[in-house]
């Protein structure tokens, strides 16, 4: 009988991770993770595991205990982008003077431009477009089904390939699992085995799924199957995206209130995959949102790995080890050089929600030492 492993279901956020490729025969096929995000995230998980395992009293290799399973849905968004580009190009066959139903040339060109916007590898715009697409009910339903097809494949392999499974989700991925998983298992009369852990980094589920008091959210609360046994949330004070509408589920689970919350993080850890961080203000502002950055947060790492390794009593030791080993914690000199840049950028920010803005400014002030 093969050794059963703990499946870590890694769920990506918004953005492009794979791409369509056309072979010499004209066949279009989807190539996942061509940008290497999953590979990089797996490398980060392995690296932090290597730091955590000694204080946890483990000697096994990562691959002996865990298997990272990629859960991806970016193909759906990319298909929309590609088809819209294709449609916009077809209209160009009709020439630049196309007018229709009283719409002026400028409006039509704007629509064309919007639909073709996916041609450019604009990180920010593609992220926004993914989120907007996910808000469309039929797109969301497709994404949910696609994700649960992949999760179901892991569940079906319990006892054959896997002994347990957990979610590790980032950004948009957190909203996806918060909607997909309860939608597909929450109403079952026979609940399936739930995840051991849901690790939710930069949680957008409240922002994108609405109220946190609904039945969907109750399925994510630590408890009996199909609920997870534990829920770990990572939220950095400087992660603006996670701060827009922070995840506040109001769960009464003692496991959640005692062990799961991991908010108020404010140290910056570039991590092992980010060698040149940060060069610009934009870099500095987006760094806290990065997966690698969260994984190297000592508090997140300690909670995650102590739980995954069944050694939560060693949490303090794991935390200390990660803090000591985490590469490239931002030093004071860099911190100071960024301070002026960030303050300048903040002055030019458009008016925002007062509460959110005050939180961000407070966090920045704390971070830069007032």
């Amino acid at each position, binding site marked *: 009988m093969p050794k059963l492993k703990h499946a870590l279901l890694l769920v990506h956020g918004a953005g492009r991770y794979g791409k369509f490729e056309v072979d010499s025969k004209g066949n279009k096929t989807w190539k996942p993770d061509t940008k290497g995000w999953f590979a990089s995230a797996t490398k980060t998980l392995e690296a932090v595991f290597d730091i955590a395992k000694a204080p946890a009293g483990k000697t096994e290799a990562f691959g002996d205990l865990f298997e990272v399973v990629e859960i991806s849905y970016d193909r759906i968004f990319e298909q*929309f982008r590609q088809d819209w580009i294709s449609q916009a190009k077809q209209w160009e066959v009709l020439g630049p003077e196309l007018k229709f139903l009283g719409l002026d040339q400028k409006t039509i060109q704007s629509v064309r431009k919007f639909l073709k916007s996916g041609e450019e590898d604009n990180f920010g715009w593609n992220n926004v477009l993914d989120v907007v697409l996910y808000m469309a009910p039929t797109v969301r339903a497709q994404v949910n089904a696609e994700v*649960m097809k992949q999760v179901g494949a892991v569940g079906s392999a319990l006892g054959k390939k896997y002994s347990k499974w957990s979610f590790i989700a980032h950004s948009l991925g957190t909203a996806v699992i918060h909607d997909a998983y309860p939608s597909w298992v929450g109403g079952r009369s*026979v609940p399936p085995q739930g995840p051991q852990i849901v690790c939710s980094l930069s949680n957008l589920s409240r922002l994108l799924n609405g109220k946190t008091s609904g039945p969907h959210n109750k399925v994510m609360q630590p408890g009996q199957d199909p609920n997870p046994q534990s829920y770990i949330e990572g939220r950095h004070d400087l992660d603006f995206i996670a701060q827009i509408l922070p995840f506040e589920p109001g769960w009464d689970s003692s496991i959640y209130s005692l062990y799961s919350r991991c908010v108020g993080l404010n140290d910056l850890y570039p991590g092992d995959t980010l060698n040149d961080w940060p060069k610009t203000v934009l870099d500095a502002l987006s760094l806290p949102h990065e997966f690698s950055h969260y994984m190297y947060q000592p508090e997140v790492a300690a909670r995650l790995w102590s739980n995954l390794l069944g050694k939560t009593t060693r949490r303090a030791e794991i935390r200390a080890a990660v803090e000591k080993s985490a590469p490239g914690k931002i030093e004071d000199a860099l911190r100071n050089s960024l301070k002026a840049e960030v303050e300048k950028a903040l002055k030019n920010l458009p008016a925002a929600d007062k509460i959110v803005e005050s939180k961000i400014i407070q966090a920045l002030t704390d971070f830069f030492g007032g």
Partner: protein
Amino acid sequence: MRSLLSAAGLGLVLGFCVDSANAVTPKPPSEIRAGLKETISAAIGECAAAAVKEGALGSTANDLIDRFDNLTGDEEPCRWTGNESKVAENSQLVATALNADSSGVELAQLIAAAREVVEEQSFGCEKWECDVANTLKARLDDLLIYVRDGGSSLGRSRFVFNTDTKIFGIEGEEIDPLLVAMRAGPDTLYKAWPARRFTTPVGNLGDALTANGAPLNTNCAPCRDRARELLRYVPVFDVVNLATLPVSSKVWEPIRVEAARHAARWEAYHFGGGSARTPLPWELIINGWIYQQSKPKADREGRIPETPTAPPSWALVVGHPSVGIVPFDSKGAESNVVGVVEVLGYTSWSYDDVTNKRKDEWGVSLAGVYSPREEAEDWAPGVLVRLPFQGLNVVWSQFEGANGEDDDLVALSIDPGKLFGEGGAGSGLACIFGLPMCKN
């Protein structure tokens, strides 16, 4: 305990039918409770001792024992966490399993007795204790249901007690690890899986005893007693976990199959008409709104249905431009290529049972047809009919001809991405019609 119960023919009135021939005299709950505790402690204590002695459990049990020893030092406070609900829940499950004899009635008695204990303990409990008690009560109620049903279905639990085969375990499994565990005794049990270590469904029991920040129970005596009792279950949890895995995969499999079917059909819904038919943003909004309204009311109000609403097999087409080709005489137009904008249309299809792709698609749209010409209006109203063939649409319109009469215009609106794309079946046609997709 078992012999006591069966020999004396004792039983409880449990609120469900018991064959009168097998009717038993109720035994006082207190006696059942005392016997239950004794039996459980003896059975699992033996099992744990043997396992630890053999070292079969490796560090799991040893770690726990170390921590337990540390914990129970006089100066060390006892700490508990919500993990214990899982521990207790499974302990109770194992307890009932271990005591299962050849009589479903007897098992039911044990379950009912256990439930009474829980009920009694939960009176005036602290919050975390109430959580544990409620969890236990729910699980025990589940177990009772299965005993009543004779294990005819999996129901809401992973375990089934079949009153015919007298097997308490996984329905339909040739090998029932839990049953083996229960009947074989500790020696056989741990020799059967010497190289395997299954972590328990309760996580790390040690966490329940020593984790930082947990609620403090200053009364160490009962804490220690309960911890000792729970510790005895550790070896059995491993087997319970093993026993539940095949059932878990069985519960997951229909979800996987169903989700795969939905995913394939949603793929067909959005992209199955070809790239030229992929819904535009405003169509996603309109059809998405309709889809939301089509869900059952309870679902819209928040109740989670057994399965999400299936993809629709129809859609509205709104403001959707495409390109058509006039295969015959274009009658004064500057080009054989026309623009077609479906102002409002309806299209429906069915899904193939095997491939889940669209089939039998029909539709009709009111369209604006754009065909630039020198002596007449560039635009004319028309009708587009969608046919169930490779995304082929037929467009009809009437343009004002040179002699002032209306000239019929028939165009084929096709998904060029499907037929004229690189290497596509109709790529040669793209060149014949001078379409930009013809690269040569």
